[in-house]
């Protein structure tokens, strides 16, 4: 963290975002779960869409999952309709949507780290790692799990 972090940070606009990032700061991945019917949900929201309970809890999950989909972002052009843009040296980055089997298959958005972007495929097993990007914010990222450790898990 010697360099100033210059990418977008969570703004804590959304319901539950403080709960989520307080957990990641402790290097825990927690997903909102209905306290009545047990349904997991992400992004977090006030009411459970299954049973309409307003009671929820933040349940720690293993951080193991699979790649639901991903894109290797190699840059941007005006026609890619950027809402923001980063300096060219920030690319490529891999945006990944991870499916979490121990949270009812809930999807969360993250980045793949320590991987060959061109070798990624949907369905590959991944696990969470935590990146302390500022003194305040820790982002959950994901890396590939090799098949051997996945089988022994």
């Amino acid at each position: 963290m010697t360099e100033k972090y210059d990418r977008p940070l969570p703004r804590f606009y959304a319901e539950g975002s403080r709960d989520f990032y307080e957990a990641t700061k402790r290097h825990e991945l927690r997903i909102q779960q209905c306290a009545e019917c047990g349904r997991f949900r992400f992004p977090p929201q006030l009411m459970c869409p299954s049973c309409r309970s307003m009671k929820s809890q933040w349940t720690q999950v293993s951080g193991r999952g699979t790649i639901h989909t991903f894109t290797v972002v190699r840059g941007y052009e005006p026609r890619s309709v950027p809402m923001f843009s980063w300096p060219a040296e920030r690319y490529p980055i891999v945006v990944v949507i991870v499916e979490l089997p121990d949270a009812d298959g809930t999807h969360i958005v993250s980045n793949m780290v320590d991987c060959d972007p061109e070798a990624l495929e949907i369905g590959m097993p991944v696990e969470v790692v935590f990146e302390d990007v500022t003194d305040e914010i820790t982002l959950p990222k994901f890396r590939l799990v090799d098949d051997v450790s996945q089988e022994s898990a």
Partner: protein
Amino acid sequence: MSLSASTLSGKAAITGVGETSFAEGASRNRLALALEAIEKAAADAGIAVEDIDGIVRYSIDGSGNDQILHQNLGMKDLSFSVEIPYYGGSGAAAIGAAAAAVSSGLAKNVIVYRAFTLYDMTHFAKRNAASVWAMEGGVADFMRPYGWLSMMDTYALTYETHRAKYGTTTEQLGAIAVAIRKAANRNPNAILRDVPLTLEDHARANRVSGRLVVDDVTLSDCEGAAAVLVSSVEQARDSRHKPVVIHGAAAGLGPNPSLNWEMHLFKDDPTVSPAHYVAPKVFGMAGVTPADIDVAQIYDCATVNVLLQLEDYGFCAKGEGGSFVENGNIELGGSLPITTSGGMLSEASIHGFNHVVEGVKQIRGTSTSQVDEAELCLVTSSVPTPTSAVILGSDRGGMS
């Protein structure tokens, strides 16, 4: 034909259309664009501007509100005004709302319009009620910090799921881009009218996000406006144009999780768009099937979204969109010519209202890519937002 007594089917018609010229870049006043399109639509319908008594507009449109339009246009008695909050999914829903107003007696001459400038997307969207999801729904907190920054990233993420599940190739996306560009090359009002595109060009282009190239996504930074006038079918029969009857209209998000726009990727299966749920409603109201449709104006913010809609509206089975678009099948002369103005990929990006105008032209027989004897045209609005569709067609003499 459907038993239409209890629906709006066959009771309202589009009697006038108006368009400004389209351009990339920002130079014109967005209210001036709206006023120009509205005046042209009224003139085309043969209606005095002051006799417009209804306005339907989209969200994320900074051109003004009903009072500003009323004041500028000198309307006599504005009786009905609503805003459809579906962003790019609003166009067909706006036509449906106008038809509902006309067929229920709330108004007689309803203008539906979309004015679009760069300002609408970069500034006005942030202050619009329809954009609350972007902040409160978690876009800023759970997506942007990971570099998911552009619309193209969303489409690339969607395409990858379809590719993995059904083997859909980038060459098949290219066939969509090429078909729509060919239509633009015939349309003198299209921004890319003079820019040809081949399958080879598409295959050779740089992949910007995932496997997508710039020609897989909409033109951006466009400005322009389009408007149509909706009146009763009886009034349409007395007008100077061939009546363009609204036979079916529907809108919706589908069942939970009803997350919209970028957040659809949190759903279990992003290869199914809300169009899957709108399709039976719009075809059911019109009393027709996909096989009856002669030409379709498919909302084309991205090639992959065209593919999803062709499947979800039932022109082919789920997963078969890739083979459906090959070999010129969606071009003039194919089984289903689509997006015959050049759409958002090649005519102009104005949140899909050019698609509505083009649908009217096809039924009138005045398109620059005219389909022979076009009797029924499906017009769709954006997926994966809340989406909507209308079926426009010839007058069936009160039997629709």
